[in-house]
């Protein structure tokens, strides 16, 4: 197994946010004709600097908590670490298999059954059909959904969907687990199971990056913490200084 590590240096991510007007070709054309301007520029398109010069180094066994207000760049950083957003400046270097749990609906087809969704997720994560079959029983048991796994996912509650997604994603022996907020899904019993899974991941010398607003969760899972404010990151600090960061 490769040793997990994350190295982010001088990461800047800017992206255009397209308003409803900017998404219409008709309006863009009308504007270009009437103003004589270039197509698709200016009106309705706002450039946002989501992350500015972020530096981050994590090694095997690190569990980083990301805190910050809504829109401070936590999710953007997670998406960048997953490989979905490419840097505008700087570099991201991640060693290890990445599993991202940023959005419950990844690969989830709500009309398909739980089993089919596990299969789909497994395929997306790079498992062969046979590898998925081998793990199916274990994943199915972990979800605790029993007979519901043969029913369409659209009949599931949010908590059940969370169980399914978490079970499928963490069954993949990922080295780097990226999670956004929703770890609080599921009932107390599932929380306990999830807790065990995450500890196992840490034992395997994986890396966890978790964005959340809840201090108890951070204290439970993380040994390091970083605060984002308007796309600017603080230093990576020990979790014991969490109260200091929250106060500041």
């Amino acid at each position, binding site marked *: 197994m490769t040793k997990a590590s994350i190295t982010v240096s001088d990461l800047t991510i800017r992206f255009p946010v397209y308003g409803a007007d900017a998404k219409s070709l008709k309006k863009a054309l009308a504007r270009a004709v009437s103003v004589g301007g270039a197509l698709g520029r200016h009106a309705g398109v706002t450039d946002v600097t989501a992350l500015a010069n972020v530096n981050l180094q994590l090694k095997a066994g690190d569990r980083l908590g990301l805190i910050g207000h809504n829109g401070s760049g936590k999710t953007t950083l997670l998406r*960048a670490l997953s490989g979905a957003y*490419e840097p505008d400046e700087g570099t991201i*270097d991640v060693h290890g298999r990445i599993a991202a749990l940023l*959005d419950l609906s990844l690969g989830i087809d709500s009309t398909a059954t739980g089993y*089919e969704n596990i299969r789909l997720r497994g395929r997306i994560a790079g498992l062969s059909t046979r590898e998925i079959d081998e793990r199916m029983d274990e994943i199915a048991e972990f979800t605790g959904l029993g007979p519901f796994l043969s029913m369409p996912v659209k009949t599931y509650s949010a908590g059940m969907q969370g169980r399914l997604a978490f079970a499928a994603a963490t069954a993949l022996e990922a080295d780097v687990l990226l999670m956004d907020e929703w770890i609080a899904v599921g009932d107390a019993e599932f929380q306990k199971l999830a807790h065990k899974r995450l500890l196992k991941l840490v034992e395997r010398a994986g890396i966890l990056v978790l964005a959340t607003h809840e201090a108890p969760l951070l204290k439970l899972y993380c040994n390091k913490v970083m605060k984002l404010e308007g796309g600017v990151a603080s230093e990576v600090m020990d979790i014991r200084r969490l109260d200091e960061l929250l106060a500041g």
Partner: protein
Amino acid sequence: MDSATHMLRTGRRGALFQLQMALRDLQNSFARIGLAWSLATHDVGSRYRGSVLGPFWITLSMGLMVLGIGFLYASLFNLALDQFLPYVALGIVFFGVMTGIINEGCDTFVHAASMLSQTSLPMFTFVWRVVFRNLINLAHHLVIVVGMLAFYGQWKVANVPLALLGIFLMLLNASWASLLAGIASARFRDIPQIVISVMQFAIFMTPVFWLPDRFGKHQVFLDFNPFYHLLQSVRAPLLGQTVSGHSYVVLVTMAVVGWLVTFLVFARTRRRIVHYL
């Protein structure tokens, strides 16, 4: 989520670097071509889940349409059924593949938004997903095509290789159009309506339901219809007719120029597509 154990992303700019990254995307999509196939089979399977005939609804509905249109137009234009039915069956089926790939291309990235925004999966995987999905549909329609030709005694195995070449050229051209439509539709939400209207117009302007020789002296205009050449390269060999060399020149030129332009657009927009969504 990805099977790769190392991911390096840099903020390097420059056209050459972007071109390189676009090529790597293409390579990676071939390395994981099985994923595109899995997604495509899942799509087809889930669309017909719970129905008695399953995906053979595709066959049944197409069969009824071919028969209906075949009998109607044959009597309207006073044509011999044994000539017209196989002709119209081939036309509808293969024009349907083109329409399917290009129209569904509009949703290539829009439908994959949640996957694209948290993985480093190759973009091209989703293009192949659309192509495969339509190939699976085609496979269900082949029953009608072969059946119709065999019923009228026009099925010849010797015609198949040339028809396969035609299908290949058709896929090659439809796939770049599909990708281009996908990028444009992600950026501008009114593109799908335009694409659908164009394809609807095209099916009536192309000899699918009518015979080109009825066009009389206006037949030269067919030369300017790319869909005519695309359809002809598949339909003519199966009907035992010859495809003019001119058609092949048009198709190959269109594939080369189309892919060049599309690939450049892709290289330029690749890292932005996820932000369009």
